């Protein structure tokens, strides 16, 4: 994989989210955005100015945010409920479970500043539970775009989806992650960014970028990696998962989430039940009081970095060869 494949940009996925919603609202008066004093962090100030009627503000009241969004969606509004992922998927979990998922009101829940994006603000502001919690709720999809174009495509998909969707992303500027330049986001289908037969690295969201950096490093050690942006965590692309697990010597999953209940365990459960036995490692945040620091410091601490992923890959392949 060539160096120019990772283009740095100054645009976060949150910026792209708001830009895409503005584009959709320009031609669709049914687009409604609901915020809980979260328009600033959601980059939605401009949306509110351009479409004041289509922006509903409920104040700092996340349960109400989701209940109101469900009511709007039940009346045909294409509704985005936007709030930091930590609050959205914990404070209003029952509203998500009952009012959105069980009642099938097709709200798009947008968890912003997700994972450990808030860094040193600490665990109250981290969302390391959201995949696990929502995977166990029937009738909601979970989409975690890695870069700007996956985000734009996911937002457009979710706006017109007739079942609930949880979109989750962070707030830092994201590089464009693509090999061919073809922006081939497809809901429910993992995106293979680069291919190699030694190890499959299955990542999501902001962890895809360090996975690609690691793949480049591994190539210099003659270890060839497949890197997948598994942006749709539920429903999981089990065909792609089985295919790379059958062709590679090892599989690593990476997520900015607890190692419990997220992408890694979803992959492990599928592979084991299919009788596909492969050297396997889940990278994420362990079950402990999360180390304090910036987002990058926290991710580095837990090995979610170029060098951390290289080390994990080398160890896993060595183990397998023993």
């Amino acid at each position, binding site marked *: 994989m060539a160096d120019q494949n990772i283009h740095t940009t100054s645009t976060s996925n949150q910026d792209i989210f708001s830009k895409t919603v503005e584009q959709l609202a320009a031609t669709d008066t049914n687009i409604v955005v609901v915020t809980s004093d979260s328009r600033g962090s959601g980059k939605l100030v401009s949306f509110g100015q351009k479409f004041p009627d289509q922006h509903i503000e409920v104040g700092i*009241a996340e*349960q109400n945010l989701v209940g109101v969004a469900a009511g709007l969606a039940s009346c045909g509004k294409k509704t985005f409920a936007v709030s930091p992922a930590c609050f959205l998927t914990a404070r209003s979990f029952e509203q998500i479970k009952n009012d959105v998922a069980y009642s099938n009101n097709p709200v798009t829940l947008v968890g912003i500043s997700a994972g450990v994006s808030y860094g040193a603000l600490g665990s109250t502001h981290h969302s390391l539970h959201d995949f696990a919690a929502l995977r166990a709720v029937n009738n909601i999809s979970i989409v975690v775009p890695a870069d700007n174009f996956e985000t734009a495509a996911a937002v457009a998909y979710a706006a017109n989806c007739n079942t609930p969707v949880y979109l989750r992303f962070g707030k830092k500027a994201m590089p464009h992650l693509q090999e061919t330049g073809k922006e081939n986001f497809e809901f429910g289908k993992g995106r293979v960014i680069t291919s190699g037969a030694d190890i499959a690295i299955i990542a999501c969201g902001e962890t895809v970028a360090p996975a690609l950096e690691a793949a480049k490093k591994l190539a210099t050690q003659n270890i060839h990696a497949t890197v997948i942006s598994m942006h749709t965590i539920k429903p999981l692309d089990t065909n792609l998962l089985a295919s790379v697990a059958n062709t590679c010597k090892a599989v690593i999953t990476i997520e900015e989430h607890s190692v419990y209940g997220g992408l890694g365990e979803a992959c492990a459960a599928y592979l084991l039940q299919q009788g596909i036995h492969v050297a396997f490692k889940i990278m994420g945040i362990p079950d402990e009081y999360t180390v304090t620091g910036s987002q990058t410091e926290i991710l580095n601490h837990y090995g979610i970095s170029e060098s951390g992923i290289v080390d994990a890959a080398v160890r896993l392949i060595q183990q397998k060869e023993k």
Partner: protein
Amino acid sequence: MTEKELTIQSVLYRKKILQYIYQAKAGHTGGDLSCIDILNVLYNKVLRVSPETFNSPDRDRYVQSKGHCVEALYVVLASKGYFAEEDLNTICKYESHYIGHPTKKIKGIEQNTGALGHGLPICVGMAIAAKLDKKDYRVYTLLGDGELPEGSNWEAALTAAQYKLDNICVIIDKNQLQITGPTNEVCSTDPLPEKWESFGWAVREIDGNDIAALTAAFDALPFEKGKPSVIIANTIKGKGVSFMENQIKWHHGVPTEEQYHQAQHELDTVLQSLID
């Protein structure tokens, strides 16, 4: 329906509620009997919705936040022709849609409820949608007094006032009891009218088992232009059956055979006196 016809209808509904609870050996008897007059007036006098118009975007919406009193809703919807009454023979049976809380699988039911404090936020969303679409439908939700401590109610009450939702009406079935005991001993929400007023709502307090009082209150909506309306309906839990009235054990008590026949006999006597 006239006031007299509605009064008779309430007795008939009470008989049906007891019939199906006795048959299913499950149900929220006390609350069903306290709120049935409210549902009677809503469905037979107020709501602009029918089985034919139930999918119309212009219909009035009713969301039952106190979802546990679903048997009352079932007998009213059956009487309006949303489904065949014989379906109610499956209440709480294996694979039946007629479970112990409302679900959208049943025609006439707007939202799945059961967890408390969920109806009002959803209705606020529906009422905002009406304003956005410049539609004149109204949105109604029935809350139990026991569910008022749920904070989500008060979050939504604030938003309804902020958005001047005079197309929304909350009815509180204030029977003053909940599963543990009197609401005032569990977690008092008094003074209730002052609380809602201070949240920016227009308030009326009425006898919620009085057909004429209910009709007059609904006729007066919105109580104030630019404000959401709340009807505090003072009711009697177990209303209409002497030994069930104001008795905590009938929160979800199921009558024995003897109690069942006594209750039906009492209601038949009232019915006879109304018809004569």
